């Protein structure tokens, strides 16, 4: 439980307007796409038409002779730098070297005076390939005669985010394997009163951040400066320092506003390539990908899951077993961590005595997969929560009551070795069920469901910050957390204003410049409020302590005689604001005090996960039996967030996540036919639109101050996605009696299932 349960909040727990509101509604917010540097050139990328091929030769002479072209960079031109990067597995060359591993891989880059010239010169590059046998699914990758995608040995990257070794590069196409086991699964299944078993497929999906990947690099003889749309500037810095073999201090990543991420902009993407272009062209270079190119850069891991779940005669879940094959594509990126997380997330949020989950991801000749909102959880929550409904039906229980009976309880150590559960699933489920009208009569062809998920948040506690209190009492927060839209520029000032007793309007945020802002490991895994929020709280208190000592100095008393009050200090009758303390201390109306905080895996952050990210969602759908089309009648989200620093922002994260989850449940899916991605464009990849809005939406938060973050806060913003596909599959079963074990549940799939049922 949280150490402090404060309730009389002045600034925190209020839905204050977003700090970035005015700049974003007036078009003045700057993204990397909007930036230009003096003397800047532009790059365009030539991509492989083949899924797997040797590069025999590249003739770039005609392209380099094209007027306006500064240079052409290929995999043959990278002597002098370390061209392979990757924070977990260093398997990704910044341009294809010797061979290409997926259709769409970067083979060469043209740097020219403008984008159009660079684009024209691309077709003057002549590449000779020798096609190799390609593999596209984990099953093909696991076959005995499968070609090996990576022959090199790999060392595990120190910042991979988990403790085990990496499996990649050990003579097979397995990129990563992970297994969890406790109890005696075989015995439990033998003794079970009822068992549900099935095979499931969760598709490849595309995050579609509306701002495609973009970066500007300026590499001179000893320094690398990059403006990027990256979520995690410090992780990208780590890769760049290794590519150019430079000290950390010589690599600077600057991230202004980011136009959406959802995990797709986490870790390193195009930055090494742009930096290599600038290094070769000897001037700043900008590379802005198109959406089609972004779709050839990152996707989510698709997953084939076999799962079975057992209950005893009392309706208690006694065992779960799963074997998962994930498809990580051509390069590891962050998929090793996705494998670990999806393995763990097969269990939660239920207390199950016997568990065996085996999971491997495979290299294939497809677009590299990496982080995606929910981080492997949605992939396994489709099977997990589908089986909960199926089991309930099999033993004649109400699926909502069945969940209530089996959900992990507050404080329960339901996952061996992990932090006891810090949410209240009973309240989450009750709230969701009430919101969708649980128990009320349903119309024909309607289905109503609730589902839950509980994720061991991937938020690793390594975060620091500095808070500068200025002589006029205004405050600057220096944070490595990136504003992706989630609201860090609003939430962090709310915490500082609450602690320091200064007006919210007087707190400014400077973010994500690795040369200026203190280290923060990443902006992802719903970590910012909990970890950076804690750092801001501690740094504010550190500044207060320093100002108490300063006040004692100027008032010529002992620090023990000074009492900190809201916005300043008191000593007997004397009362000084922070501004007065600082001005008197320096004897000038200027200067500042710097509070700082370092968060590490220690104290209340020593148990992992730092928090369990829990949420319930509920929905009511209707199915048109003629066409198989599903309509969302009602949608409810319940975020178990401990305490919402800004409730409107927390609810906004939930509905955003649930809508992405709904998209995957209904129509989002990247489709490969042979070696080619056939719907790799926004014309063909179906996204949720206004007309897909559920007819009724209810957003709820459960705030029991049970997290380790500031005032009991926990992370949110992913969990409402995770259970949506399962919710839709369960609701379809309820509405029309067909069980579909694959997302998305497109009209065609529902229609075919209905046809099969009638036949």
């Amino acid at each position, binding site marked *: 439980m949280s150490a402090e349960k404060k309730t009389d909040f002045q600034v925190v727990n209020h839905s204050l307007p977003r700090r970035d509101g005015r700049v974003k509604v007036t*078009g003045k917010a700057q993204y990397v796409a909007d930036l230009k540097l003096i003397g800047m050139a532009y790059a365009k990328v030539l991509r492989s038409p083949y899924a797997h091929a040797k590069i025999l030769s590249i003739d770039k002479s005609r392209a380099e002779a094209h007027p306006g072209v500064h240079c052409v960079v290929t995999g043959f031109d990278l002597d002098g730098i370390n061209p392979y990067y990757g924070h977990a597995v260093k398997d990704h060359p910044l341009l294809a070297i010797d061979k290409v591993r997926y259709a769409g891989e970067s083979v060469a880059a043209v740097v020219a005076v403008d984008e159009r010239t660079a684009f024209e010169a691309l077709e003057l590059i002549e590449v000779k390939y020798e096609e190799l046998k390609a593999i596209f699914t984990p099953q093909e990758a696991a076959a005995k005669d499968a070609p090996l995608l990576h022959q090199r040995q790999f060392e595990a990257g120190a910042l991979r985010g988990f403790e085990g070794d990496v499996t990649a590069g050990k003579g097979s196409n397995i990129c990563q394997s992970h297994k969890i086991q406790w109890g005696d699964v075989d015995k439990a299944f033998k003794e079970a009163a009822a068992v549900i078993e099935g095979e499931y497929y969760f598709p490849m999906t595309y995050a579609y951040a509306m701002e495609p990947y973009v970066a500007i690099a300026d590499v001179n003889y000893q320094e690398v400066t990059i403006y990027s749309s990256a979520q995690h500037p410090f992780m990208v810095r780590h890769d760049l320092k290794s590519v150019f073999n430079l000290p950390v201090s010589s690599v600077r990543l600057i991230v202004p506003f980011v136009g959406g991420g959802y995990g797709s902009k986490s870790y390193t993407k195009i930055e090494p390539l742009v930096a290599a272009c600038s290094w070769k062209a000897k001037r700043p270079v900008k590379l802005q990908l198109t959406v089609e190119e972004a779709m050839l850069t990152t996707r989510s891991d698709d997953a084939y899951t076999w799962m079975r779940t057992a209950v005893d005669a009392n309706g208690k879940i006694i065992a779960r077993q799963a074997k998962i094959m994930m498809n990580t594509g051509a390069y590891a990126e962050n998929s090793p961590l996705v494998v670990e997380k999806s393995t763990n997330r097969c269990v939660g949020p239920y207390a199950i005595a016997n568990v065996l989950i085996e999971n491997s991801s495979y290299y294939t000749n497809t677009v590299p997969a990496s982080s995606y909102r929910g981080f492997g959880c949605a992939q396994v929550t489709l099977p997990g929560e589908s089986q909960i409904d199926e089991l309930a039906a099999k033993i004649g229980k109400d699926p909502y009551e069945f969940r209530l009976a089996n959900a992990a309880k507050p404080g329960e150590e339901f996952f061996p070795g992990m932090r006891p559960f810090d949410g209240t699933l009973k309240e989450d489920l009750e709230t969701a069920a009430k919101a969708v009208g649980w128990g009320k009569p349903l119309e024909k062809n309607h289905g109503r469901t609730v589902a839950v998920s509980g994720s061991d948040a991937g938020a690793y506690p390594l975060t620091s910050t500095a808070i500068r209190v200025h002589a006029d009492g205004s405050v600057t927060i220096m944070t490595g957390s990136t504003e992706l839209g989630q609201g860090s520029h609003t939430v962090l000032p709310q915490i500082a204003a609450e602690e320091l007793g200064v007006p919210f309007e007087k707190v400014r945020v400077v973010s994500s410049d690795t040369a200026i802002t203190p280290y923060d490991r990443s902006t992802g895994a719903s970590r910012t409020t909990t970890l950076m929020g804690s750092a801001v709280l501690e740094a504010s208190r550190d500044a207060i302590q320093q100002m108490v000592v300063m006040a004692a100095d100027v008032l010529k008393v002992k620090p023990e005689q000074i009492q900190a009050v809201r916005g300043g200090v008191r000593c007997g009758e004397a009362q000084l604001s922070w501004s007065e303390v600082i001005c008197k201390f320096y004897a000038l109306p200027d200067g500042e005090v710097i509070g700082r905080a370092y968060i590490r895996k220690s104290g209340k952050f020593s148990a992992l996960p730092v928090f369990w990210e829990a949420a319930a969602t509920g929905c009511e759908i209707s199915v048109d039996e003629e066409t198989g089309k599903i309509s969302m009648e009602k949608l409810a989200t319940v975020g178990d967030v401990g305490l919402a620093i800004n409730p409107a922002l927390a609810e906004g994260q939930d509905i955003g996540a649930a809508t992405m989850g709904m998209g995957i449940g209904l129509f989002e899916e990247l489709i490969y036919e042979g070696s080619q991605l056939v719907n790799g464009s926004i014309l063909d990849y179906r*996204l949720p639109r206004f007309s897909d*809005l559920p007819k009724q939406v209810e957003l709820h938060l459960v705030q029991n101050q049970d997290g380790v973050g500031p005032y009991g806060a926990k992370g949110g913003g992913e969990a409402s996605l995770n259970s949506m596909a399962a919710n839709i599959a369960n609701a379809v079963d309820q509405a029309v009696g067909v069980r579909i074990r694959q997302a998305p549940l497109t009209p065609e799939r529902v229609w075919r299932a209905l046809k099969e049922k009638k036949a």
Partner: protein
Amino acid sequence: MKLSFRLNGKAIALECEPADTLAEVLRNTLNLNGTKVSCEVQVCGACTVLVEGVPVSACTYLAYEARDKNVTTIEGLEKSDGTLHPLQQAFIDEFAFQCGYCTPGMIMSAKALLDENPKPTRDEIIHHMDGNICRCTGYVPIVAAIERAAEAIAKESKK
């Protein structure tokens, strides 16, 4: 080629290439970066600007087609005294954006709707806005913001 048009109420004359899109001229030549470009195929609506009050996708609308016409971009909505357009204020009040990348196009599309139909129903809002994609908000607060702006505009016109 020479091109002249009225941009946010002011006469503009410039040189451009025949193949330049309106988005390129706005962003690259005029350094007006409020108009965002995303899909480049008229699907997402991020680049929406108004030409003679009608919403167009600046990513594919050739700049020369705007010759001698009135073009309105997101930069043209704020009054000179700093007062925001009711839509801009409503987007802030309803938390109708997160990353903000779709927001200028979203607001311009909504403006075209309210200019034409000051009291739209929820269904009319959804129908009109269906060509604008937002990946962050789930659209719920955007519909609320447009409804709120419509009310604010109605109140203002009664004064």
